[in-house]
């Protein structure tokens, strides 16, 4: 079976860790160029869902994926799939920004440099382009060659987004990217996500309901390892179908905000 180039889909996926199911009965076709929020309390499998899309759990023993996971027209758990190629197409942003002990400039071009050692002349341009795209350029243009650890947490998170964008992914997986940030920085990241979705498919895991309301086009509500409810964001928030969803929404999720 061949799928279209832009397809991002789970078909009957079950993910187990040492035989215990983490996610089951997972079937979902993600909307292209939209923000899909994966909502759910802690431990509901949000991170596992995201990581399974770029096969980041491959090295964890006892971790098994059954069913079909399709990314960009390829079934990614099929033997012979080039994982490294896949990960260039599927970028991941983690909860707390992970900055390498090097300059801002070196951090932005980290991935690009690795994949394109021959395009050395373009590095400065690439750095500028993606720092601009991450709305960080104005803040760091005068200290590109200073250690990136001196940036604020919010700036570091935008820097890691710029670094991922520079590898030119079609899909962006974001695992609670604002969880460790202050409200102002969170706001900046949300604006950034808004501008990024034009060209990329974005999956955002969060337990922050207010954030999901602000930026989600579609919602998946994960509860206890399976999709409890899904749909357009407006429908989801206005007319939640299930009792658990209602309780989650009224209780403000597990997040204090």
């Amino acid at each position: 079976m061949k799928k279209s180039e832009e397809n991002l889909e789970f078909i009957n996926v079950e993910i187990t860790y040492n035989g215990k199911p983490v996610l089951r009965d997972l079937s979902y076709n993600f909307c292209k160029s939209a923000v899909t929020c994966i909502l759910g309390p802690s431990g509901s499998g949000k991170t596992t869902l995201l990581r399974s899309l770029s096969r980041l759990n491959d090295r964890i023993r006892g971790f098994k994926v059954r069913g079909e996971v399709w990314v960009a027209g390829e079934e990614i758990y099929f033997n012979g799939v080039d994982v490294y190629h896949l990960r260039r197409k599927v970028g991941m942003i983690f909860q707390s920004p992970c900055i390498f002990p090097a300059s801002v400039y070196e951090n932005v071009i980290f991935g690009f440099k690795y994949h394109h050692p021959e395009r050395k002349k373009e590095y400065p341009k690439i750095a500028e382009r993606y720092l601009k795209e991450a709305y960080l350029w104005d803040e760091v243009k005068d200290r590109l060659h200073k250690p990136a650890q001196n940036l604020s947490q919010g700036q570091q998170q935008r820097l890691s987004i710029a670094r991922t964008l520079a590898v030119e992914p079609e899909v962006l997986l974001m695992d609670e990217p604002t969880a460790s940030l202050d409200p102002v920085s969170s706001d900046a990241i949300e604006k950034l996500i808004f501008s990024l979705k034009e060209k990329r498919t974005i999956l955002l895991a969060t337990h922050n309901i207010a954030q999901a309301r602000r930026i989600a086009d579609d919602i998946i509500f994960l509860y206890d390892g399976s999709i409890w409810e899904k749909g357009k964001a407006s429908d989801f928030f206005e007319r939640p179908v299930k009792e658990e969803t209602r309780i989650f929404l009224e209780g403000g999720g597990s997040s204090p905000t």
Partner: protein
Amino acid sequence: MFSFLVPDRRCHADPMFWITVFFAGLVLLVAIIFFSYLIFESMPIWEQGVWAFLTSVEWEPAEDIYGAGAMIYGSFIVTTLALLFALPFALCGAVTASEFLSPRTRLVFKGAMEIMAGAPGVVYGLLGAALLSLWIKDFFGLIDGATLFTAGILLGIMILPTIMTLAEDAIHSVPGEYRDTALSLGLTPLQAFLKAVAPRALPGVIGAVLLGLGRALGETIAVMLVIGGLDIVPSGFDLFSPGQNIPSKLGREAAEAIGSGLHWNALLALGAVLFFGTMLLTGAGSWLLRRNKV
């Protein structure tokens, strides 16, 4: 007067508190006495000229002439050889264990390394004298297998597990996010290690190497059994000549020299040099290791 202690007065009423403080103080006192004794007792030698003692290669107890040159040279050569020999194995082993072994295999491997690191020096010495020096003698066609080279290799084998397991700790303590981030950007696990993990682990790895070197510098009995025991600086950096390092010299002559005037002072001066060297290495090593953990 006890202003350096915990300011909490309730604590001071408890006799248990004073007992702990007493024993802690005792340890500190012993350390101070130990160091002062080493310096004081070697004073007659230092008064004759520090530089002369450190560089002269003549050591004639019968004529009361003492120079540490040969021993310092021997210590330097043997430690350097040990480092050159151990480093590639230790680092590759550490990287493999931390990055490419399954958690269970890693623990088995680490356990084996820690047992090796804890094995007494004399056991290494016996194996070195029985096997290594014979192999080296046959392989290089020497008259005698007890050489600086033999001692260096044996020490290298001895410190290998120490360096490997400490370096592994340093590498393994780099947070998983660094690996995940590099992997998510499309790097292979090996490249992720080299580009993202290694720079972070470097201070800790250097610390591990320095601690290993500290051990190599102070090891006595294993070296005594295979170094040959000649107080010379061989011409032309000949590694296949017998030699002497500071600990083996001390081990050989301490018993006969105790309380015998200048000879004893000279041995203590050697001890002070060695103490200073290992103190620098282990001090720098632990500092780097600690800094890495933060």
